[in-house]
């Protein structure tokens, strides 16, 4: 982080990151772990993830709640979708997005989280990155991480050989230690696996039929196969300490998603049907919440009776009457 402007913005976040790290480190040391050991620092990073992700829970819950509220506006949403059915040109798409967004706003059911949760995590990520980077040079942090702790953090090694600040590419160029490469490789595999699992869970089980038919869904599918590549590249370039943050965060997402899909599935999705089946087995199904409202919209009644042929004049009149 050589950019002064960015440093100024990141300063308060860095300070908090350091405070949480040092706090957990203090706790682990208090319990009796070696303050200079790599494991202690890894556990401190895990603690940092726990605090950050727990702080983001309210945002997540809010999002789930508005998704539930979507049930109520589903008929209106369906109306908009029907209006633009089969219209694939850019202007119709745009008009449809506009109407959908306006509906969300009016009814207070916006299911989108905004990019704030992502934006919030990014500086934390960068801060951890720069904290590790500075610590590696034996520098103190901006606040609670004093010179002594900074040096300790910078020198901390896993299994006595793999420094937390080391990267795969770094140890590759320096001809070792090979343990760094093994640990980094292992973490890339774990990260890919957990991300794959989370994403697959959402896509296979927690999507309404409408969402599955949308072009976004196809985009998500492509993403499923691109993300592992992202992990491989970052796994090569990022220090082990940062990787531990990312991995733990991924695991948290996996667990959180599992609970949500199990207990609060998207209405109309496969997970919702599975939940109904589970509840029905136990005899605890609430009838009001059971059936997905999206499918229960009555279609225009189809008459099987043959229409009598009418003269042009009468046909015009009849059509006029209908409208």
């Amino acid at each position, binding site marked *: 982080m050589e950019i002064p402007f960015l440093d100024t913005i990141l300063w308060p976040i860095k300070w908090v990151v350091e405070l949480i790290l040092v706090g957990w480190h203090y706790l682990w040391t208090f319990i009796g772990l070696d303050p200079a050991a790599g494991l202690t620092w890894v556990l401190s990073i895990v603690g940092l993830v726990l605090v950050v992700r727990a702080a983001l829970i309210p945002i997540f819950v809010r999002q789930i709640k508005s998704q539930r509220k979507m049930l109520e506006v589903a008929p209106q949403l369906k109306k908009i979708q029907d209006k633009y059915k089969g219209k694939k040109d850019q202007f119709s798409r745009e008009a449809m997005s506009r109407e959908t967004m*306006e509906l969300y706003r*009016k009814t207070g059911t916006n299911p989108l989280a905004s*990019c704030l949760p992502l934006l919030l995590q990014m500086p934390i990520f960068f801060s951890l990155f720069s904290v590790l980077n500075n610590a590696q040079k034996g520098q103190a942090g901006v606040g609670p991480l004093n010179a002594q702790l900074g040096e300790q953090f910078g020198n901390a090694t896993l299994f006595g050989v793999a420094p937390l600040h080391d990267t795969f590419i770094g140890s590759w160029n320096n001809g070792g230690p090979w343990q760094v490469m093994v640990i980094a490789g292992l973490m890339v595999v774990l990260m890919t696996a957990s991300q794959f699992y989370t994403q697959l869970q959402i896509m296979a089980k927690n999507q309404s039929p409408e969402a599955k038919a949308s072009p976004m869904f196809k985009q998500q599918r492509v993403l499923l196969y*691109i993300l592992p590549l992202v992990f491989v590249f970052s796994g090569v370039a990022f220090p082990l300490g940062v990787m531990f943050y990312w991995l733990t965060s991924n695991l948290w997402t996996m667990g959180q998603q599992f609970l949500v899909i199990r207990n609060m599935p998207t209405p109309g999705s496969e997970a919702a049907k599975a939940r109904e089946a589970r509840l029905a087995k136990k005899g605890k199904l609430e009838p009001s919440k059971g059936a997905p409202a999206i499918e229960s919209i009555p279609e225009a009644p189809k008459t099987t009776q043959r229409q009598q042929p009418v003269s042009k004049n009468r046909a015009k009149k009849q059509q006029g009457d209908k409208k």
Partner: protein
Amino acid sequence: MTSVVTALVLAPRNLAVLLLRAYRAVISPLYGDVCRYYPSCSSYTLQAIQQRGLIVGSALGVYRIIRCHPWAKGGVDDVPPVRRQRYRLTPFGFVVAASHGKG
């Protein structure tokens, strides 16, 4: 002569257009549709920069990102329109003089 001046005036915003297009093609899809507004923050910023230039456009974009949080109502939020549209957009999104390519 004037076309050279126009090109120079438009250079910063066109550079920003290129960057934003790259961001929207490569990074945006990574986390999918999350914006609570229409147009999305990056699309809004792109339009703002195209219409108002790099400085005012970026400021509008930053202000939009600040307004876009989980407690915002969201909805349709277009770039405040400019009084007079002096330039033309290429299909890619670059800003050129209105007479560009004609004479």
